[in-house]
């Protein structure tokens, strides 16, 4: 009779263990899988993490509940709080750090894009300026004439950028070609600039865009977005 009683108790404890684990697996899995689909893993992971944290706290309270001694309860509780706090801290910091690194990557991309534009765009304008002033005091050609001559007859809307490599997406477009005023524009096709609502030259919105203006007094630069 006594042996039978012990056997039932053991079975009950195993059942309790299985119920705890199965319930935890189901709840955390549902929290993870039912989170709306995203290109990031974080939303689903954070939701599952909140449920897993709540589960762990409930589990710890149950596991350390009486008749476990007070000394063990206090020690176990302190260790659990430290481990859970460190886990949450590392978890949150990792999310913050990876997002920051992605921001940095795009910041570097923006800087590279602007740098290339600001190096490449003045080159045809400087050549034009040099040729224009080499004519001396009596000018036979206007700035527009010189520019067209040096840029193979470029007109308003022409892309005068020669691709540096196959698939080079950069364009340098002639926006204005007045007698003594030439405006060049270049923009990124997918790198976002400062103002999200800025209307780009090609109709897109919010992309990096740089403008250089040549007059006979020199070149001026406008960082439009």
């Amino acid at each position, binding site marked *: 009779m006594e042996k039978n009683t012990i056997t039932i108790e053991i079975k009950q404890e195993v059942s309790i263990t299985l119920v705890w684990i199965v319930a935890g697996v189901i709840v955390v899995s549902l929290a993870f899988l039912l989170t709306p689909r995203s290109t*990031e893993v974080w939303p689903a*992971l954070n939701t599952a993490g909140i449920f*897993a944290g709540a589960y762990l706290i409930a*589990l710890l309270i149950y*596991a350390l509940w009486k*008749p476990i001694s007070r000394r063990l309860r206090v020690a176990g509780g302190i260790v659990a709080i430290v481990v859970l706090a460190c886990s949450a801290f590392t978890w949150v910091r990792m999310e913050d750090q*990876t997002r920051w690194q992605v921001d940095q990557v795009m910041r570097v991309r923006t800087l590279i894009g602007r740098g290339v534009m600001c190096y490449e765009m003045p080159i045809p304008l400087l050549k034009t300026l040099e040729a224009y002033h080499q004519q001396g005091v009596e000018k036979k050609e206007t700035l527009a004439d010189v520019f067209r001559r040096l840029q193979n007859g470029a007109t308003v809307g022409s892309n005068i950028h020669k691709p540096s490599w196959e698939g080079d997406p950069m364009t340098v477009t002639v926006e204005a070609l007045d007698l003594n005023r030439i405006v060049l524009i270049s923009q990124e096709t997918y790198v976002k600039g400062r103002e999200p609502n800025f209307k780009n030259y090609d109709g897109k919105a919010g992309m990096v865009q740089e403008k250089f203006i040549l007059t006979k007094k020199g070149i001026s630069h406008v960082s439009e977005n």
Partner: protein
Amino acid sequence: MSQKTESSEFAPAFLWQVCVLSIIALSVMISSERVLFKHTPHYVEDPRTVLFPWVIAGMHTLENGLNAFAGKPARFPEAVVQARVLAAVLIGFVVCPGAFLLEWRRRRLNRDGAGGRSQLRGSSLLYGFSGVIALFVAASIIPISVISETSRQHVRQGLAVQDNRDLIINDIHFLALNIYQYRLLPRDLGGGNGSYRGYRLPEEMSRTNDATYSVSVTDHAVTIHAQSLLYPTASVEVKVDTTRRLAWWKFAGEFQ
């Protein structure tokens, strides 16, 4: 009857049925992933850890960041990635701590009550295995959080210096343009008429948020000196030649 019941803690073949089912489920998931989705190259190497889900999620975020850098759209996490993350949460935060703590409590109470030694059974193996995993996660999380916080500070500090340096180089390119067009312009338009002699740095270009700038001029070259405002020992020096080319770059202090 009671002898038989005590020796089989779980239903017959329960444990190995669970193991076989788990292996089949994992195999189906991984093989369907390979069949359904073409292999796509990754910029970031897959993390080797299976216990820290935030590492796997972080790698996916970085992967998408590098896709954005290359102008590609962000990708949804593949089923394998999601399975790994979920498995890591379940192993590290549900199954192992659950099995370990509940078995620990059972043993504790049995020891206090009956005082007998338990024999080696399925639950003992599960207790040992889950205990190792749970204690490994618990023991490693403190040094991991300290190390990751330290490296995070190092990365941010390093990138802040690099950022300041890049912005100064960017400013220098604009200065070089201003200097070179001075050379091209005739004297009546305020230029040097083929020489750099007489060039003066415009007031608005001599100081930005990043650095202060000064120039020393000869007929055929202008040397630009940039002194960082954020890192007082850091500076950049470079020479603009007669073709607008920037040559003889010198970086000092933190910029080296």
